[in-house]
């Protein structure tokens, strides 16, 4: 921040032009972010107060089909009209079909009228699950082709659950009242706290190992980054296969070495599954902590250590009294970032356990509610809870960040 002096107190034309240019340069980003981030966030809030399920995403529409049936005196056109929704009414339904009036023989159904060579039917409302036949008697000599030309068109108005003004608190009461919520919160916290701390401690240890040059340093550094770089789906399935209860090598190894008597279902039993997904999180993200910590370590002045050597400090003392205070800044920033990102993690648990065996975190429960239970409203409500937590974390984050300049 040092190169930006205090903003000028009065605006000159030049400063105004610069500000205009700046906003112009940021505009595309701002617009795209607003469209894909801010708008959906508002939508989540909106949906979380609505009683809406996956099936409601398709608005109720009237559906019509036409058939000509019968011979001679029995000849008739049958219009089959139904409501696509089982429980929502459609208003102002209008059916239009080209049907020359001279072909019609006999009374028309209620609400229908022949106007010139068109048949028009109007209905005030058809309720949910409506499924009726409208029968129009025809003259016996009516030509099949003439009747069949042109499909009937139907229009109607229905409430779209997404845009109407019906609100409810049911989603929130549902998720807070289910006894599961507290356990989901507990699992989320365990996963987040231990996943974050583990990744930091492992990253610190790895950085210490590679903080001096030796022959294999480059190779090892590349290898240590593998878990972070590989696609999550690839490594998650590898873990599943390695720890498979029936054909997994890990189980075969444990049994052979006499550690376990019988095979263990690592990702399917209760406390163990959560420990496993947390270990996976640590395994996958320690490289990121390692990268940042190593970069910081290598930027520490070596004069300090030389002075400490002169004073007879032992290696552990040097680490404890010299390196750690220097690393505290990057560690606190990393802790906050990783904490927030681990809290947000979805794919890892989704792929490893699908949230079963006591590993359902808040993010997995958004997906479960919305797509497994088909209750989109409840899913959005969980998402709102997540967002609330994140706002809290971010406030803390920026408080600490502003003290830690340089990031």
């Amino acid at each position, binding site marked *: 921040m040092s190169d930006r002096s205090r903003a000028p107190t009065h605006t000159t034309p030049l400063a105004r032009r610069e500000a205009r240019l700046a906003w112009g340069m*940021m505009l595309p980003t701002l617009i795209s972010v607003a469209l894909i981030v801010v708008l959906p966030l508002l939508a989540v809030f909106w949906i979380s107060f609505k009683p809406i399920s996956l099936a409601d995403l398709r608005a109720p529409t009237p559906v019509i089909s036409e058939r000509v049936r019968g011979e001679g005196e029995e000849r008739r056109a049958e219009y089959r009209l139904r409501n696509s929704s089982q429980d929502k009414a459609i208003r102002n339904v209008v059916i239009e079909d080209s049907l020359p009036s001279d072909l019609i023989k006999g009374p028309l159904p209620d609400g229908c009228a022949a106007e010139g060579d068109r048949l028009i039917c109007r209905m005030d409302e058809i309720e949910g699950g409506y499924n009726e036949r409208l029968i129009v008697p025809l003259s016996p000599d009516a030509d099949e082709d003439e009747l069949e030309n042109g499909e009937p068109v139907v229009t109607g108005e229905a409430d779209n659950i997404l845009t109407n003004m019906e609100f409810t608190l049911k989603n929130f009461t549902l998720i807070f009242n289910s006894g599961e919520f507290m356990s989901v919160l507990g699992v989320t916290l365990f996963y987040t706290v231990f996943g974050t701390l583990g990744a930091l401690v492992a990253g610190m240890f*790895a950085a210490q190992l590679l903080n001096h040059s030796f022959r294999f340093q480059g190779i090892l550094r590349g290898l240590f980054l593998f878990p972070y770089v590989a696609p999550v789906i690839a490594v998650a*399935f590898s873990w599943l296969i390695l720890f498979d209860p029936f054909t997994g090598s890990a189980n075969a190894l444990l049994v052979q070495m006499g550690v376990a008597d019988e095979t263990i279902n690592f990702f399917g039993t209760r406390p163990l599954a959560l420990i496993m997904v947390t270990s996976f999180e640590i395994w996958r993200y320690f490289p990121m902590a390692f990268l*940042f910590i190593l970069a910081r370590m290598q930027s520490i002045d070596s004069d300090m250590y030389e002075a400490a050597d002169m004073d007879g400090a032992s290696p552990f003392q040097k680490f404890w009294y010299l390196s750690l205070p220097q690393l505290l800044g990057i560690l606190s920033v990393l802790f906050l970032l990783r904490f927030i990102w681990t809290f947000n993690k979805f794919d890892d648990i989704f792929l490893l356990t699908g949230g079963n065996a006591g590993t359902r975190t808040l993010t997995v429960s958004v997906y479960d509610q919305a797509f497994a239970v088909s209750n989109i409203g409840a899913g959005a409500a969980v998402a709102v809870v997540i967002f609330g937590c994140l706002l809290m974390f971010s406030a803390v984050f920026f408080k600490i960040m502003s003290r830690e300049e340089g990031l």
Partner: protein
Amino acid sequence: MKILHTYLRSAVLLGALWMFILAVTFAVAFSFITGDPMRPSLWLSLIWGAAGGGLMFAASRWTFIAAATVAIAATGLAGFGPVIFAQIGPGGIFIAGLLGFSFGWTLDVMFGGLPRGKLSRHEWEAAVIRFLSGLGYIVFTAAVFIPFYVMVMTSLKNQSELMLNPLDFSVDLSKGWGLFSSYYELFTKFNFDTYLLNSFMISVMTVIVTLMFSIPGAYAVARLRFRGAALMSRSILLIYMVPIIVLALPIYIAFSMTGLRNSFVGILMIYPVTTIPVALYMLQGYFRGLPAEIEEAGLMDGLSRLQVIRKITLPLSLPALASVSLYVFMIAWNEFLLAFMLLDDPGKFTLTRGIASLNSSEIPRQHLMAGSVIATIPIMLIFLGLERFMTKGLTAGSVKG
């Protein structure tokens, strides 16, 4: 702790622990390689390790290493060595000998140059640190390496071979090209060629779009003076913290309604938004680090701001642009959740989505792992080739100095 500050005592203690660590390492490593049953013995390792520490105190360097090699090989043959074999053959003797040699060599390095008597705190801690480093190298290398090893080896073996002995990863080289039958099938019957191309196209497009948006944005935040600049750079980070799953829900609904689901256009609308914050953050850190004087000189010479950016700033920040591109490419290539939710037409699958479709009981796990290898290899090659680049770019702006 003070009681341990002599050469002999710490050599016996660390030797015992070290032998146990090495015995476990060897048993696991060679079980994975050969599939032969063997197991480390806790008590025997501790006893032999302690004895080895004592011997090191008494003997010269090469005598000690040779003696350790012979002794551990002999005890292995007799059946009471640190690693116990179900049946000992020439291979087993070789493994036991190698264990003895490694033990002698590494323990000697651990205590290299220490006086054979009282140790100062300094000297003692140096030995302990070497011991811990050795442990660290073993643990980290094993933890990182094993899942990838399992991935590659599983992709080369068929179901029945795997069921027979899950530990036997020895590859039957007589099969020749038949080893890669899974890969061949994925490319011929499972459309993996299409997926690979789709993933590549989408990732490259994401990089281009991201750079187009984030270069001007990052420059404005880093260099230009306007009211709200600090707020802007904060909000960038804030976007970084919105979980994808929260956005995925309304995006899924909106895309279902507008027909953008299951289309490259839809994917290319969303991917850049997940990567722009990262790119903005990395680039602004880099732009801040560039000396402002060069740009000011350009301005003095009558260039406009935009010309300065094009002719001075961008050429200077090529390394940063390269590492940002790489990182964005990696994110897009590895992205799974959005692809999983938004793509249902196999002609449009990305690699990650394609692998997810292999996860069914009808398809052998060999294919699943082969697919994983196909998705992992390109990104690994790119990364290893440009790793130094990446490290610099990733940590730019976060490190003072």
